[in-house]
């Protein structure tokens, strides 16, 4: 079995910052906007190098989304930066009308998504954003898994013409994907080959899925781990090809089970090949204060939870 290790850990938001900085050097049309969270979003490098292409909006996210929409008229490619909560729920109608329905080439870049925001608690820990954004017609939804993938995704979305929601996080997590990867929107990545169960994971749960697959291997269970970084459009072929082989699936995400990756996968299975599925996700709940590790443990979003879900789904085959 192929195993993955890491030598370094970094936050995925720094991957965004590095990708944005590179875009600043290579694409003169890229502009950035922020609603008073430059440091949190790691946008400093882009701003230092391209001060004329940066717009500090202040604490006014609705205005930021509208200004971003307007900047596309004139050929700019705006990247907005704030927390995931303020990038989605707070400005849903602005995104819906001025960006999605208007077909504007805005990249909504959202940090501190999910429980791993940690101690600030539920007011800031959005677990509904993937659902909100994937429901918008034409919106691409991407949730990369580590620093390198987030950097590659940030660079890739500048070349895609249309609205994109890019979701990443706050804590340092293992870097296990290559630095020189080419990011393909909508293309799943198979990390391990397996025959007993398919584990489809996104974001911070991808590393946890790999950890789970190691433990499962030792217990004699062969798990195929697939990274779905693009929740919409979903790589249905990759999922269906895998379950054709394994016959059962576990989906894993740092998001509510309502509206997340798991539901998107369930729709595909129901339409094409009904298959037992277990969901590693939050159970229609808000988060709370705590360290990221404590929260991921309490809400069942780690390797242990994935292993448990695998054992459950195997019994349903």
């Amino acid at each position, binding site marked *: 079995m192929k195993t993955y290790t890491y030598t370094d850990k970094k936050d995925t938001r720094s991957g965004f910052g590095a990708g944005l900085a590179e875009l600043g050097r290579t694409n003169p049309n890229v*502009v950035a906007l922020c609603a008073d969270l430059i440091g949190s979003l790691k946008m400093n490098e882009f701003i230092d190098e391209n001060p*004329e*292409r940066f*717009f500090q*909006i*202040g604490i*006014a996210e*609705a*205005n*930021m*989304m*509208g*200004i*971003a*929409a*307007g*900047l*596309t*008229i*004139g*050929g*700019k490619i*705006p990247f907005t930066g704030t927390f995931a909560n303020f990038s989605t729920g707070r400005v849903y*109608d*602005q995104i*819906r*009308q*001025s960006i999605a*329905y*208007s*077909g*504007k080439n805005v990249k909504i870049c959202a940090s501190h998504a999910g429980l791993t925001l940690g101690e600030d608690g539920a007011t800031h820990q959005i677990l509904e954003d993937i659902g909100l954004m994937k429901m918008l017609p034409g919106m691409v939804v991407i949730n990369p898994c580590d620093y390198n993938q987030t950097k590659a995704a940030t660079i890739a979305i500048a070349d895609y013409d249309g609205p994109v929601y890019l979701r990443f996080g706050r804590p340092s997590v293992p870097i296990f994907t290559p630095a020189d990867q080419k990011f393909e929107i909508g293309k799943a990545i198979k990390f391990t080959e397996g025959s007993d169960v398919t584990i489809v994971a996104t974001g911070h749960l991808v590393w946890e899925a790999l950890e789970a697959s190691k433990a499962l291997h030792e217990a004699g269970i062969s798990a195929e781990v697939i990274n779905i970084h693009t929740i919409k459009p979903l790589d249905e072929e990759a999922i269906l090809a895998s379950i054709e082989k394994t016959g059962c699936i576990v989906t894993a995400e740092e998001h509510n089970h309502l509206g997340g990756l798991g539901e998107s996968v369930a729709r595909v299975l129901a339409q094409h090949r009904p298959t037992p599925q277990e969901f590693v996700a939050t159970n229609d709940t808000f988060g709370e204060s705590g360290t990221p590790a404590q929260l991921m443990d309490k809400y069942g979003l780690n390797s242990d939870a994935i292993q448990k879900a695998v054992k459950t789904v195997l019994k349903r085959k």
Partner: protein
Amino acid sequence: MPNIKELEDLTTQVRRDILRMVHKVNSGHPGGSLGCAEFFVSLYKEIMDRNDHFDMDGKGEDLFFLSNGHISPVYYSVLARSGYFSVDELNTFRLLDSRLQGHPTTHEGLPGIRIASGSLGQGMSVAIGAAQAKKLNNDNHLVYSLHGDGELQEGQNWEAIMYASAKKVDNLISTIDLNGQQIDGSTDDVLPMGSIKGKFEAFGWTVVDIEEGNNIEAVLKGMAEAKSLAGKGKPICVLLKTVMGNGIDFMMHTHAWHGKAPNDEQLAIGLAQNAETLGDY
């Protein structure tokens, strides 16, 4: 010098278009549309420097954004009569498969429209973004926008108003249609806003008053003054005093015709008050 008679004739024809469009589908918003007919005609025929060919980026020309999208009938009529699309297409207003949706949208590819609007309070932010893109592109053209007075009750406007002056967006001319009416009644009854002029000035804008917003000459004069104030470090607000339902006597000075279409008899009366000038679509 603009030919005032020609502009007035066009305004009369636009009023007929508005009435006929909303009457045909028994829906739409005639009141605010009629109140802004002179403004739209002045803007598109005299004030703005426009390219003949429409493209979304609008480089090298002035841009206009309608924030209060429900007054789409006047927008569509003036766009059609300015050559963006055939006037015959006004026949399709609000019908299935039409590019002339109830509220304006880019989604169906109608030339002249650069943003969807209808959910209120979003247009000024968009206009600011477009104005800042012009500055980045070293494009000296201006960005215009129109907003309802009741629409100012939406909080996003005040984020935008604060931002535009702080960031010296001085290539932006935002007009407020001061008709004093909204769906549930007069703005003073629904939610009194105090001095709108005082608020814009306190937020650092230059304010131009147009007391007679339904008089072409007054609108041209006021908008020319607004243009002359661009590029001086402050965004410009035009307070355009209009009469809702202007030009159709029974529709004037009331909120009753905000979102209601005339019946056959009312249409006939309205059209009789506005004789055909340039030919109905």
